[in-house]
């Protein structure tokens, strides 16, 4: 009788394959963390070492003592949270209407909404700069939030449209027969069914704003400068401070990792949303 591979063997292979896949994604981040823990003299060691020979927190101490960085972290948080909320506020109702009441005009609307994602961000930089200057919003949190929202909304619109397409139109009709207004049905019946979609859209909007560099560079200077700009300042014309830069990047990545972990259940639900739809 021929030996058949046991189910455990198959599971092990799948797990190993998953581990390789995860490592290929995680390796740059692991190297970032590892570099942040190296003493300054070892950071650019030649040949480079993957793991620190000696563990040091000196880079983190440097980062914490860097003038402007704590403020920049606060600015980044405020801007990213407000951008996320504003993007959802604009995109979610718009996506619902465009998904459930599909007309030629809604298709055109969706296409036009994507325009800001179709052109290179740098080409929008100067026009945005002029608009913000005219509005007196340069170097303000509101100015940067509006700029980030202009690019986050199309993404949120697209994502939420896809989620709303899985919602039967009959749900809203039933709610209205029970006396709900259209808006009431949307808020009380439809939205509660969408925690995964909202979580994923919120997360993507948050990350887009959290990591955005170009608009923050052009539109801020002192008061609302965000962390990516301050982190980039470790790369000076007379040298790249790898150690502090990696330490700052590690600290800066923690909130996103935390938010992702908190929303893990909803994200997984969102990723599999509609997977078993007939």
């Amino acid at each position, binding site marked *: 009788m021929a030996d058949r591979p046991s189910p455990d063997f198959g599971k092990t292979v799948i797990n190993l394959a998953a581990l390789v896949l995860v490592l290929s994604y995680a390796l740059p981040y692991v190297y970032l963390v590892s570099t942040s823990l190296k003493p300054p003299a070892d950071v650019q060691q030649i040949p480079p070492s993957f793991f620190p020979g000696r563990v040091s927190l000196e880079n983190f101490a440097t980062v914490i003592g860097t003038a402007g960085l704590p403020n920049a972290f606060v600015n980044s948080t405020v801007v990213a949270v407000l951008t996320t909320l504003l993007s959802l506020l604009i995109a979610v109702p718009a996506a619902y209407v465009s998904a459930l009441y599909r007309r030629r005009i809604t298709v055109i609307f969706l296409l036009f909404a994507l325009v800001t994602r179709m052109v290179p961000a740098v080409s929008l930089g100067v026009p945005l700069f002029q608009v913000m200057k005219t509005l007196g919003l*340069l170097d303000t949190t509101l100015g940067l939030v509006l700029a980030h929202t202009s690019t986050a909304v199309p993404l949120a619109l697209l994502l939420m449209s896809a989620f709303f397409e899985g919602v039967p139109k009959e749900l809203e009709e039933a709610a209205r027969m029970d006396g709900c207004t259209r808006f009431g049905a949307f808020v009380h019946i439809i939205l509660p069914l969408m925690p995964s979609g909202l979580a994923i859209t919120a997360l993507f909007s948050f990350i887009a704003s959290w990591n955005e560099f170009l608009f923050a560079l052009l539109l801020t200077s002192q008061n609302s400068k965000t962390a990516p700009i301050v982190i*980039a300042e470790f790369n000076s014309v007379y040298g*790249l401070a790898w150690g502090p830069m990696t330490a700052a990047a590690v600290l800066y990545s923690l909130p996103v990792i935390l938010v992702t972990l908190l929303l893990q259940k909803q994200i997984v639900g969102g990723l599999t949303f509609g997977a078993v739809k007939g």
Partner: protein
Amino acid sequence: MNKTLYCSVAVLALMTSVARAEAITVLVEGGGHSLQQAAADAFTKETGIEVNFVEVPYQGVYDKLSAEIASGTSNYDVATIDVVWNAAFADHVEDLSDLFTDAVRADMPPALVADATVGGKMIGMPAWANAEIVFYRKDLWEDPANQAAFKEKYGYDLVPPATWQQWRDMAAFFTKDGIYGTVVIGGTSEEWMAEVLQAGSPGVILDDAGQVILDNQAHIDALENYRAPLCLDKSVPDNALEISWGEAQNLFYQGQAAMMKFWAHAYKMTPEDSQIAGKVGVAPMIAGSAGIAAIPGPWYNVIPSTSQHKDAARQFIAYLEAHNALGIEAPLGLAATNSAYQSYMGKPGYEHFGPLIETLSAPATKGRPLNKDYQELVDEAVMPAFQGALECEDNVAELLQDAAETARDILGQ
């Protein structure tokens, strides 16, 4: 009652406008901020004019200033810009010719004054300048055994390298016991460009008339000499194309290279926990047939034409020039004027100032071409030939001829 109110409002408005006129905003890269803060503080104390620095990453200076210029207005009264951007911003900044008095000119290396001149206009005042000089391991050079062995092998004394041949000899001599003699940088071309000037070229890439000279004999000789430690002597790590300034500096700091050519500020920044701390010697840049030469790395203070406070900005720039030594205590420890450097000569920890000022003031030292297409020339024409040569197989003259053709295409010559 109304009259009193109107008067009060008018006085307040006047006071506000005066207060606003008493503040200027300076756009600057991080390192440049620290070099100018002390002088700015003294300036404010003396004049009452507040100076606000807006610090951005290196490339941010160019991007932000470009965006401001494109918008037709500016939040900045002064911008501190890298010399490589002088040509790009020349049409959008004030002429500072009146600040370049004879005394000011006499107190600066001529190459810095030349780099400030674009189209007959003095577009900026040098704020600080840097240049590559020779760094070597004093402990190796002063070792009697090394001195005797070197003299026996090469027939002359082991002294800090001063010529192309000495550089190659010493690099070959010290390539032993697990260390390399030196490092060939393949990631950037400035160090080779310095050798082009040392070989007697009237300029790098372009001559003063803007004509392409990338394939002249000096460019060829310099590239042959530059790659010799890599391709002939084997006295450097063989991964030259992966080595840029940062890597070269680290090889030296980690005791893996006996000497290097590097920007002078690094002398003051040798890490305390480095293997070579306290053992670093410095000398002027090496010389070719035309003598010592380097590509200076100055930064200039310019006044955007859109500035709302041009007079205050002009005062600030003049003050910085007159009190240039105030920046030397900053971590980078650089200045632009001879007098600033001379005021620190002989002080412990500033041994690099002598070689730096000698290198900056050398007759053959000259800046990169002040051309709006400079970066494209480097990226599209120079680097392919330069890095091709460092693969040690192709003919240098042919590579540079191709590069010159590409450069002429870019410039429409």
